[in-house]
């Protein structure tokens, strides 16, 4: 597990994209994804435009394309579904080499899922690569995301590693006493371990809450940074959304 304030999807850097405030990047990424989703699937070349836009951001942020590509593999399980569509879709069918026929709406549907999903994943990865987790939380806080959501996410960021450590110690203690689950019916001890981990985490939650209340917490996280986001920063971030919107509109006009 990574450090408390870094994560495997983050690529440390000092580029202009890294320095942009998190809330600008969150809004920009969300905006771009909305444009991608709104583009008609028949406007094939427009999707190339989105990819170019992302590539431009990668260049600015100095993210190697291979680095992004490896992490984009997370999408693979979802692609399987898309691959099935051309075989299961309705009429009309088109014939390809070797007498195999594929459904035309199925093909279009598969393309739609594939291209929009991939662009969405790539956009999210770009956001994650240039923004440390705690900055994302700061960004959400400044965007007035519900306080409870921000608080829960902050606590998760801190305690995920603590709980993983606890689970690891409990597992070591089980193994040290000769526990070696190979078959399903031997999994009872593991299951009870998960149960007691839950109880422990719950109790820790109560103690953390107690400690927070003792330091004057009343349900709202205090603003953790006084920095202000300038208009220029917003304009920089929203420029990307502008390009994406232009692409989406062209897509509608052309298609």
């Amino acid at each position, binding site marked *: 597990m990574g450090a408390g304030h870094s994560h495997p999807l983050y690529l440390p850097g000092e580029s202009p994209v890294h320095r942009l405030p998190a809330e600008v990047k969150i809004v920009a990424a969300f905006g771009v994804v909305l444009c991608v989703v709104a583009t008609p699937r028949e406007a094939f070349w427009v999707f190339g435009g989105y990819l170019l836009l992302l590539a431009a951001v990668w260049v600015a942020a100095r993210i190697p394309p291979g680095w992004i590509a490896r992490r984009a593999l997370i999408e693979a399980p979802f692609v399987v579904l898309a691959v099935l569509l051309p075989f299961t879709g309705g009429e009309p069918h088109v014939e390809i080499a070797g007498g195999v026929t594929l459904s035309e709406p199925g093909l279009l549907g598969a393309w739609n899922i594939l291209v929009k999903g991939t662009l969405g994943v790539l956009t999210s990865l770009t956001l994650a690569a240039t923004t440390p987790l705690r900055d994302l*939380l700061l960004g959400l806080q400044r965007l007035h995301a519900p306080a409870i959501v921000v608080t829960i996410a902050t606590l998760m960021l801190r305690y995920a590693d603590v709980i993983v450590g606890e689970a690891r110690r409990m597992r070591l203690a089980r193994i040290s006493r000769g526990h070696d689950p190979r078959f399903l019916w031997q999994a009872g001890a593991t299951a009870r371990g998960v149960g007691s981990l839950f109880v422990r985490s719950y109790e820790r939650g109560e103690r953390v809450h*107690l400690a*927070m209340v*003792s*330091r*004057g917490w009343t349900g709202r996280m205090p603003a953790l940074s*006084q920095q202000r986001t300038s208009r220029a920063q917003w304009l920089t971030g929203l420029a990307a959304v502008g390009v994406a919107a232009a692409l989406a509109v062209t897509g509608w006009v052309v298609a």
Partner: protein
Amino acid sequence: MSTAPEPATAAAPSPEPPSLEVRGLAFAYPDGHQALYGIDLTVRRGERVALLGPNGAGKTTLVLHLNGILTPGRGSVVVGGLPVEKQHLREIRRRVGIVFQDPDDQLFLPTVGEDVAFGPANFGVSGAELEARVEAALAAVGMSEHRDRSPLHLSGGQRRRVALATVLACEPEILVLDEPSTNLDPVARRELAEVLLGLDTTMLMVTHDLPYALQLCPRSVVLDDGVVVADGPTRELLRDTELLRRHRLELPFGFSL
């Protein structure tokens, strides 16, 4: 804040109120278990007092009354002249700084600096003053250079000192430490003692680590079965082997006074 305490050095015409005054405090948990049976305890400003007692004596229950997390069934708690009541809970929680036993419970934010800023920010401190508070608190525990690190990457002793800093940053009237020496190796234990001896804050230290109490606190109070059974100079109490035995307290092997 409007209700900031007067500086400790002010020559007040009336005698200055004690940091902590507990009168006839009794408490029973909702399940009917009576934990405290009328506690009387006064801690004057600047005193360092150890609260000793075996497990289950009611020490933690007492501590949770000091900042109004539990509400007494009977009796009262007054902190620096301000009664612990619902309408001043915020100020009470600023005045009573509790350092809990497990630093992982206390340190919940991604970086040390943010965690130290959490308390004072809740109490309305912001901007340059907040910055200065964080600096000062971390400097007081010797952890300034770890400000931007995650608590996850600190040693047990460092975490304990950061947990102390998170409370010092609130500038409390009384510092309450719950078992401060548990899980510390001897060096970390000594370093923490040095930090604590360097502070001039009023201190109530809950512990069953008797040598630590002797080192840090000139006065001790023994709590057992929900009542105060002894109150006096630490050295004298620890010499009374009969008293210690009666209340399941014991000096470590090879230790004598």
